[in-house]
């Protein structure tokens, strides 16, 4: 599959039938019915974000998660840790579950762990972590140290960060999954790095998920990686939807175009997230933020209508013209 067509409807609004149909069809619908996939495979909670399944397990994830790159690396600063905890509180209150971090992110893991303990949210979180060390033999130790930071019994998802020593780490992760010590296995990249190798690992390993950078300006993954994920039944987690905040900063003074009313978005951030979520291969997007109002705004993007193919192109063109 080289292209994933979108529905002819101008706006995709998940219906009850979509939801039930999507859940029943699961991963097969995702791969075989790309037209419906943007809406099907999408479940809407009563008043929270819509959910999408991890194709290999059927586990439903709210379509907007929380990244921690830079934003949660605040050291032992009590004031900043309290701020991060409030962001997590707002995230969970708005129906969020997926939190993603990495040993590369400084003190972020410790800050997430403190937040989870304060909020008593260890059972609610979908814990997405990474192993990031060039030595395969150091992987299990690093994963255990990370687990202690989070204070969880096991991780929902463990990913090989930037394909670093991926052969050795995947062996470890698949073994942990087989023993029931890990929920899902994935790989990550960001900002278009090593896509050739990434595709090779996607095609040859039984991965549950992949994590890539995707936004209206960084669309390289649309050509091969997103279709490949759909073909292989792999969930797609999208990082850096705002280019580390650079996109939203550049768009800050730009008025929202008319299509914002159709999409029911009140900010460029929501428009960017809806652009991403409208791609049928995308399972979850993980914007990072330090602000409670932004985390609510981000979660709200996983509700209401999504743009169809034509509107996505207009959004991308408008973003490109504005920055």
């Amino acid at each position, binding site marked *: 599959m080289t292209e994933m067509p979108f529905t002819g409807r101008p706006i995709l609004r998940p219906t009850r039938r979509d939801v039930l149909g999507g859940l029943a069809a699961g991963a097969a619908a995702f791969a075989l019915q790309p037209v419906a996939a943007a809406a099907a495979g999408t479940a809407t909670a009563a008043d929270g974000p819509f959910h999408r399944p991890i194709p290999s397990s059927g586990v439903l994830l709210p379509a907007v998660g929380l990244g921690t790159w*830079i934003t949660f*690396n605040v050291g*032992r*600063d009590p004031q900043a840790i309290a701020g991060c905890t409030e962001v997590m509180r707002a995230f969970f209150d708005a129906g969020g579950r997926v939190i993603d971090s990495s040993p590369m*992110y*400084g003190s972020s893991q410790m800050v997430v762990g403190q937040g989870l303990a304060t909020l008593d949210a260890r059972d609610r979180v979908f814990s997405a972590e990474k192993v990031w060390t060039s030595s395969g033999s150091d992987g299990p130790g690093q994963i255990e140290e990370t687990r202690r930071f989070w204070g969880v019994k096991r991780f929902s998802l463990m990913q090989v960060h930037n394909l670093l020593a991926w052969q050795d780490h995947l062996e470890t992760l698949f073994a942990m999954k087989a023993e029931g010590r890990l929920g899902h296995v994935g790989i990550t990249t960001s900002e278009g*790095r*090593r896509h050739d190798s990434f595709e090779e690992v996607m095609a040859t390993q039984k991965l549950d998920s992949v994590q890539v950078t995707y936004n209206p300006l960084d669309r390289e993954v649309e050509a091969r990686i997103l279709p490949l994920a759909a073909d292989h039944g792999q969930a797609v987690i999208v990082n850096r939807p705002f280019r580390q905040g650079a996109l939203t900063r550049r768009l800050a003074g730009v008025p929202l175009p008319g299509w914002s009313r159709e999409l029911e978005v009140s900010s460029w951030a929501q428009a960017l997230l809806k652009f991403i979520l409208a791609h049928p291969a995308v399972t979850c997007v993980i914007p990072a933020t*330090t602000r409670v109002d932004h985390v609510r705004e981000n979660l709200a993007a996983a509700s209401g209508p999504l743009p169809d193919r034509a509107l996505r192109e207009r959004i991308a063109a408008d973003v490109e013209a504005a920055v």
Partner: protein
Amino acid sequence: MPWTDYTLNDFLLFAPETYQRLFIRYHEAIWPLQIPAVIAMLVIPWLILRRGGVEPRMMRIALPILAVVWVWIGTDFLYQRYGEINWAAVWPAAGFMLQGVLLLATAFAEPEQPPDVRVPPAARDAGLLVMAAAVILLPLAAPLSGRPWLSAELVGVTPDATALFTLGLLALKPLRLRLLLLPVPLLWCLLSTLTQIAMDWPDAWILPALAAAAVAATLLPREKVD
């Protein structure tokens, strides 16, 4: 993964606000140690220049004072505090401790009174100007650029101002051993400048410009005494 795949911003692990908070919390935690630290730093140029010209034997007092400051900043600020938000801080921390050892060793490895060379006036003046900038200009850079006062660089307390002050002092040293003391402060200035550029600080040019002036002065050939 090849290092060429990374950009400068990929190495910035924290938000600019977090970096500022690091300095604010540090200044709050060590208060009022800033006062004796700055006074100790001000004593150094006075010791060396109190008789009008550069008095090399006073380096035996100045360099050990500076050595203590370098080790302190390396252990307390870089390793203990900066290390919380930058796992790579252990390397500059080690560099600062090494610089402390080198400063101490140099203080006593050189003869008290160099026999046949003296510092050219241009090097002396440039060195003094850089030291003055480290004491006066760097602390002002934060508030003048819109950052909080408490996040300011301070000589004898924080790494940028201390590294720059040290580079200025090296310009006042007559013997070749001064070159041994150049790499660590120079590398720190480079690292700090890259960090500031990644954070989009408008004043990121100040540190490298002054450091370059100090290095040029330090590299100026010393004059033979007739």
